[in-house]
């Protein structure tokens, strides 16, 4: 198998800099503002190596949460959190229906299920709708990102997320979650987790393309004998429920969602609280504007997340 043709344009050992639109080489996609990007995580290709967790933490300079054997198969990070934006779940189902250990399995992943979970970047993102400060916003790549210079740590987004993704950091008190590598997308780079994924279980691309690819994959898997494969979070599939629309980060699963610790039918909490929230938001915005005006005049200088480059 060959590498993408454009790789041949860079034949030196030293390079002049970042390869422009590197994502074309690694994911076959050009990254441009105004389009919708996401992840298709195909669990049938996942080998549970956790390269995604490491690549994410190395790129985003996220610290280890706590060190300790958890006794939950090979999962020792436990869950998504403010410091863990990709998390690989492990589910052992080594025995077949007869209670004896399997020797023949369906093709691709089976019996020891591994799934790299991540923020779903919902089409109708409840976290974003719950955010009173505008810290959570929808980027030009149709992803949902917390802006650390705006977030005040109020925590409204945390219960709003139907997937338990958003978390307040014990270090800076602010909300943190996967940004779908917002900075990398601006530079034409594939998100760190998807780029590192050894088996392309995590695929990055334009959402419509990914959905098409994912549907074809399900058909192919069914033909190959993995009859229980289905999509979760793609348009009109489980996971894309409760007013969320579709999920920009969606999954191919082979068992019930709850087996992977995903909600069977996630709901948009905002459906219930929207009117009250809007009123609150208007008030909050007014106050914030006044405060911001005073603040901006009193204190100049760039603000940043204060997190990059920090190694703990």
């Amino acid at each position, binding site marked *: *198998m*060959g*590498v*993408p*043709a454009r*790789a*041949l344009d*860079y*034949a*030196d*050992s*030293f390079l002049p800099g970042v390869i422009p639109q590197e994502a074309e080489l690694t994911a076959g996609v050009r990254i441009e503002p105004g389009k919708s990007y996401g992840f298709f995580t195909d669990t049938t*290709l996942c*080998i*549970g*190596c*956790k*390269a995604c*967790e*490491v690549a994410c*933490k*190395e790129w985003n300079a996220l*610290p*280890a*949460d*706590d*060190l*300790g*054997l958890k*006794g939950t*198969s*090979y999962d*020792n*990070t436990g869950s998504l959190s403010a410091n863990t934006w990709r998390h690989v779940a492990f589910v*052992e189902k*080594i*025995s077949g229906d007869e209670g004896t*250990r*399997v*020797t*023949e*399995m369906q*093709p*691709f*992943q*089976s*019996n*020891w*299920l*591994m799934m790299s979970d991540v923020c779903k970047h919902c089409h109708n993102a409840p976290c974003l709708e719950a955010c009173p400060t505008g810290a959570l916003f929808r980027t030009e790549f149709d992803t949902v990102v917390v802006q650390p210079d705006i977030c005040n740590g109020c925590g409204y987004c945390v219960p709003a997320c139907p997937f338990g993704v958003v978390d307040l950091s014990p270090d800076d008190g602010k909300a943190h979650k996967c940004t779908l590598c917002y900075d990398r997308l601006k530079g034409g780079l594939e998100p760190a987790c998807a780029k590192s994924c*050894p*088996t*392309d279980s995590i695929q990055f691309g334009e959402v419509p393309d990914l959905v098409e690819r994912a549907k074809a994959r399900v058909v192919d898997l069914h033909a190959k004998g993995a009859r229980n494969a289905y999509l979760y979070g793609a348009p009109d599939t489980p996971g894309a429920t409760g007013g969320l629309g579709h999920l920009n980060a969606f999954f191919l699963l082979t068992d019930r969602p709850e087996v992977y610790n995903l909600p069977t039918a996630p709901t948009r909490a905002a459906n219930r609280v929207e009117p009250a929230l809007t009123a609150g938001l208007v008030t909050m915005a007014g106050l914030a504007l006044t405060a911001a005006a005073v603040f901006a005049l009193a204190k100049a200088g760039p603000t940043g997340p204060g997190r990059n480059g920090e*190694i*703990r």
Partner: protein
Amino acid sequence: MPQWDLANADAILVMGSNMAENHPIAFRFVLQAKEKGATIIHADPRFTRTSALSDMHAPLRAGSDIAFLGGIIRHILENDLWFKNYVLGYTNISTIIDERFQDTSELDGLFSGWNEEKQTYQYESWQYKDMHVPASLAEHFVNTTESFSDCTKRLKKGPTPKDLTLQHPNCVYQILKRHYAAYTPEMVERTTGCPKETFLKVADALVRASGPDKTAAICYAVGWTHHSTGVQMIRAAAIIQLLLGNIGRPGGGILALRGHSSIQGSTDIPTLYNMLPGYLPQPHAFKPHGTLKDFFGVEETPTGWWSNFPKYMISLMKAWYGDNAVKENDWGYDFLPKIVGDHSQQPLTLAIRDGLVKGLFLLGQNPAVGASNSALVQRSLANLDWMVVRDFTETETASFWHKGRPVRDGELTPQNIKTEVFLMPGSLAGEKAGTFTNTHRLVQWHDKVVDGPGDSRSELWFIHHLGRRLKELYQDSADPKDKPIRSLTWNYPVKGEKEDPDVEAVLKEINGYTVADGKQISDPKYLQDDGSTACGCWIYCGVFPEEGHNQARSRRPDGPDGPGTHLGWGFAWPANRRTLYNRASADLQGKPWSEKKTLVWWNAEKGHWEGKDNVDFSQEKPPDYRPEWSQEPSGMDALGGDDPFIMIADGRGALYVPSGLKDGPLPTHYEPVESPVRNPLYGQQHNPAVKIWQRSDNPLHAPGDPRYPHALTTYRLTEHHSGGTPTRSVATTAELQPEGFCEIPPELAGELGIRTLDWVVLSTPRGDIETKAIVTERLQPFQLNGQSVFQIGLPWHFGWRGYATGDIANVLTAIVGDPNTSMHENKALTCGLRKGRLNRPAQGD
């Protein structure tokens, strides 16, 4: 086979390897093959992340692999499923063996030639009828009563004795059939614990994916080598692949998945005791190696590629000793030290313990964690006068004198340890330039991008400046013993403030040059035995073929429409050939076996071989070339145009190996040295030729010892790297597997009342460790000959340093060795298990 070629396979058997976990990126190509419809099989003692992605998992007890593979060989032979044209044409299946040969099936587990007193074999009865074929390994010489060189010279007088009808009772085919007759599916089940239905499905899948239109691949790793029968496990795979016609062909072959970034390079250019660069033997005091003439007399192979041996040897000595290597002094042959026995790591531990070795350099290795019988290793270090540790952090080995197990147990204190220790910071990736050779012989250059921190330096810097100092210390010596160091060429240019040696200058010396004008040489075929060429490692000749052209640095892969051999990306030895023995990808007449499986072919019009790869054969030798025996041809002239296996003296793939192996010409199932069961196949319990160093500080137990009833296997996890020094020092990897643990099947855990995260104690005659339990169905009990045996799994990455810690697994393991390689047996031993903790003081940080 190149790793990417796995994508062309129709079936892949992963055995002796947990590929998805330990070589995740290589596993990409397994999944690419799967996408195209290949069957993926994992035969392994445990259900691992590799099994989860496979179509089949064949469970087998650790150490029983030859019984399983032997069963496949029997299945192929008994059901006549072998690839006739390939096997008859390209292997020694029809060769007739000496009439004195007796098989293990006749001698209850021994081959003929066993010398009970010396505990070794005499190899004469294993030879071809009236003809000796030297080993194709680094050490070609084997001891024979008749002069060895007289025996091997007969190879030039005519073809090897054959019976193409395969009826001769002593032809390889008949011997193979007799040898494996007992390896029935039922016997496989009794010995390995793998249900026979599962075994048969595996055998069937491999056979179905082989033939002219199809190829199957086998991937292995240290799950095969870490045994007292490790070499023979790999040999068994070679027999299967030869019988199925899967060697030298696209998508076929045997891929060794090796575990360190340049472990292949450090074998090719060996920091190993028994070889010189390029698989040339290190002269041995107890072999007829007294003079260079003697050495060539017994090590030169008259026929096949190895006939070039003197050219490579003399060119090496020219590279090392320059103008001091002249014809009159045998090119400096006496400067080379002779070995007197097994100087590998395990006997080294004992030699240090016994006070023979006074000084030790550790260059990026951490034996306190990585070596067998760790308590003995740690104790032995206190017997050294001095030790230099070069690493990026304080390893367990470096800290033995204040944190080691003997110190913790009160056996030693720093105040009574004499060892003078130097701990020196080493440079890491990106901080030095040089080449690594990967697991498929691909030599790839890496750049120096930044300086390492503070006083950290590369090993090349260390060795260069140490050598420079030593040459100064010895420069005025007239003592003949100092002649080698004084004669050594050691003038690599240095650059920069830190005086870094020029790495490309070293690579150019490895590549080779003409002595007269210092011009680099582009191909090993230009190397000479008259002192006119110098070459540090003949198989790397061509890596730097001309000034300004470092092929290891080349970054030109094939695009989407290219042949997919990526000849422009790096350099694969020898001569940038990507698939060894690829002449076998074409049929006897030189045409690809199938249009679906093309690699190289004979172009009759142009009179040469061509194709997607550089041919691993004489470029212009036609398929119908036959040696002119009346002329007593030597070298490549003695191999026909359809003898693809050019490193072997008769050009044939060796189903049966007459010389070079110390434990028999055919793989035979023996139990591990420490086994829970008796050998179901033979009275001979374990490998008769195994290296055993039984002594009070390295005790072993007898089979079936009730104190150690469980099978134990050790292994790596994807989240850590071998001894764990790097990955335990980095938070992002340490948190993924933060503590030592062992894996226990629920059936055994239930009996002992053990639950996940409980502390347990594992014990062997060498010592005991405490660790946490993970109870999992991924481990399973085996029914062996009516006896139920539990198996326990133990990752061995941990130690007392870094963020992820745990007891050292190698406290449990023993110093025993494969007779061919001296490799330990840490994949298969036995242990005791109890719930609870050790009553002991805390260790380490």
